[in-house]
């Protein structure tokens, strides 16, 4: 498999910023929190050119942190990210414009005091993709591309609806002519009827511009719809990765199966009350993750080995991996619904 976007052994830790006083107190045995959260733990991924990789998990699983590391917004603690062989970051500084991000909240990601035109043109002018004199027509082109009327360049963000703002945010990312696009929950804050419009726009643009995309979402049905492959994260680790249809059709990791089982589905049988497959318990604190496999306290298949030994990531096929001691048993069990 030829990789375009390469993520090698990436980990990202968040530690407390201790003051000198606190450091001394900690040394002397005072009650100071010195533990770090390993938000992303040893993640290795290969994404092909033009591929859309879905990144799924519950809150706190590290999917957004991983997205930010790939986008060069956060430096990884260890490991590297590169696009077509060239690193995204060197010594903690982003050195490429080939990766851009679309964020969840288009109300927070646009400067309320900046008109749409300058907001979209800012980056391309700074990086020589267009000139000040040509910026207006350059922006107009991109606005049109995302389905907005180019005459709106002189409007402020508050004059747009949520869906339109997300289109502006997409235009702003694409005007940088990236090869890789990171979408962090791009439709989560939109209404259902608007969600479909933005998903369609996204499908069209990634195809036409041959974008390599990492699509982060907690909404499984959205990820299933847009992704070629999907990676499932739990407490900072990728527990399963594979072609979308295969993973959704026959999950290999018990967490994947349980997650899919707990998603409410459209129920059309009035007489029959659906029984949810619920995952027991809650996600453990990432400050003190369990021993062995992080999922074992909630896992119906857990055995002695799961409590002591962290499962290694194994290849099931060229495109599919899983990190579970008992994935064969899970595959045999099928989907839990």
């Amino acid at each position, binding site marked *: 498999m030829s990789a375009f976007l390469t993520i090698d052994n990436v980990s990202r830790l968040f530690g407390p910023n201790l003051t000198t006083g606190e450091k001394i107190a900690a040394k002397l045995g005072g009650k100071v929190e010195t533990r770090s959260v390993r938000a992303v733990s040893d993640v290795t991924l290969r994404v092909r050119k033009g591929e859309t990789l879905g990144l799924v998990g519950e809150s706190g699983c590290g999917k957004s942190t991983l997205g930010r590391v790939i986008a060069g917004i956060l430096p990884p603690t260890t490991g590297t990210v590169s696009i077509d062989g060239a690193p995204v970051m060197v010594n903690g500084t982003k050195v490429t414009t080939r990766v851009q991000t679309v964020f969840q909240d288009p109300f927070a990601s646009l400067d309320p005091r900046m008109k749409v035109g300058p907001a979209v043109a800012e980056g391309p002018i700074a990086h020589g993709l267009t000139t000040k004199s040509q910026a207006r027509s350059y922006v107009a082109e991109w606005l049109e591309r995302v389905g907005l009327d180019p005459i709106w360049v002189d409007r402020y963000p508050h004059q747009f609806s949520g869906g339109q703002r997300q289109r502006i945010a997409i235009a702003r990312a694409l005007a940088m002519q990236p090869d890789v696009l990171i979408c962090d929950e791009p439709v989560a804050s939109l209404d259902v009827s608007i969600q479909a419009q933005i998903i369609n726009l996204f499908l069209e643009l990634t195809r036409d511009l041959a974008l390599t995309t990492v699509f982060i979402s907690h909404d499984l049905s959205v990820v299933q719809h847009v992704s070629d492959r999907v990676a499932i994260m739990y407490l900072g680790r990728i527990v399963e990765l594979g072609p979308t249809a295969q993973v959704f059709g026959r999950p290999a990791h018990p967490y994947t199966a349980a997650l899919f089982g707990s998603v409410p589905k459209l129920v059309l*049988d009035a007489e029959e009350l659906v029984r949810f497959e619920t995952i027991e318990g809650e996600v453990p604190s990432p400050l003190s993750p369990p021993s062995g496999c992080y999922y074992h306290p909630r896992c119906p298949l857990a055995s002695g080995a799961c409590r002591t030994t962290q499962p290694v990531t194994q290849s099931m096929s060229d495109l599919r991996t899983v990190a579970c001691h008992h994935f064969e048993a899970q595959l045999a069990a099928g989907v839990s619904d």
Partner: protein
Amino acid sequence: MSDPVLSVENLSTHFFTRAGVVKAVDGVSFDLAKGEIMGLVGESGSGKTVTGFSLLGLVDAPGRIVEGSIKLNGTELTTLSQEGLRSRRGREISMIFQDPIATLNPMLTIGQQMKLAIDAHERVSRRAGEARAIELLTQVGIPSASARLRAYPHEFSGGMRQRVAIAIALLHRPAVIVADEPTTALDVSIQAQILFQMRDLAAETGTAMIWISHDLAVVSSLASKLAVMYAGRIVEQGPTATLLRDPRHPYTAGLIASLPATATPGTPLTQIRGTTPSLLSLPPGCPFAPRCDRATDRCNETPQITFHERRGWRCFHPVGQNSGVSA
């Protein structure tokens, strides 16, 4: 069927703003039987939350209920005094909000807050109050409830906080609970646990529920009937399964068709064009007409809701049979 516990007739709540009158809720009617769960579905600004607030008399100025009737166990609520409403809120009808961190007092332990909620309507001893609090916390799935009484809200996870809020809403065994997107902020695995428990609780206690949500899948697995709101009005209502399988209002049909779950992966989704209208500048006639493929000149008039057996819709050109998702 027995008398409904809650009966809403032609409820209209308007907000009188400087920019004009916002008809947030405009002629909403429905009944709720004992133990029944109704899903109230709509997008942001459709009036579903204001409907919930109106039921509890929680609409603040510049908004007020301008028309209609709300009967709870036979008592008309719209004409009650503030004191009369207060004595019923929390006892006969209570509410669960989306964000439990905003509804729980961060300065009081869970036990103290639950005792306050009990004292608002009853005189019970400290011991009896504590026993009731423990019983309810256990019922909503909080482990080692008696120890948790002395914990503060920040010591709970999001899912556990919402369970506490649910336990408080259940303290007086109200006839009706209005739940406003209570699982929207939670992770799917926790959402599933809570939905499942709420359904059992409604069945066990006979508490009727109005479950407000933008998520059709969530309400479809929980509610026995649905009301779909658009621009302040109920555009379609009826038994959940029939309504989803065979939607009549083009908006309902469009919403269902736009769900990724109903489409083939990778293909364009069916989309409803345009955006939800501003309630300040609603088009004359049917508010959905500008976005509707079936609209004709006739839609310049306002369609009334028409009932056909157990379901109703507000449309001159309803979608034909079997046009929803296939079963």
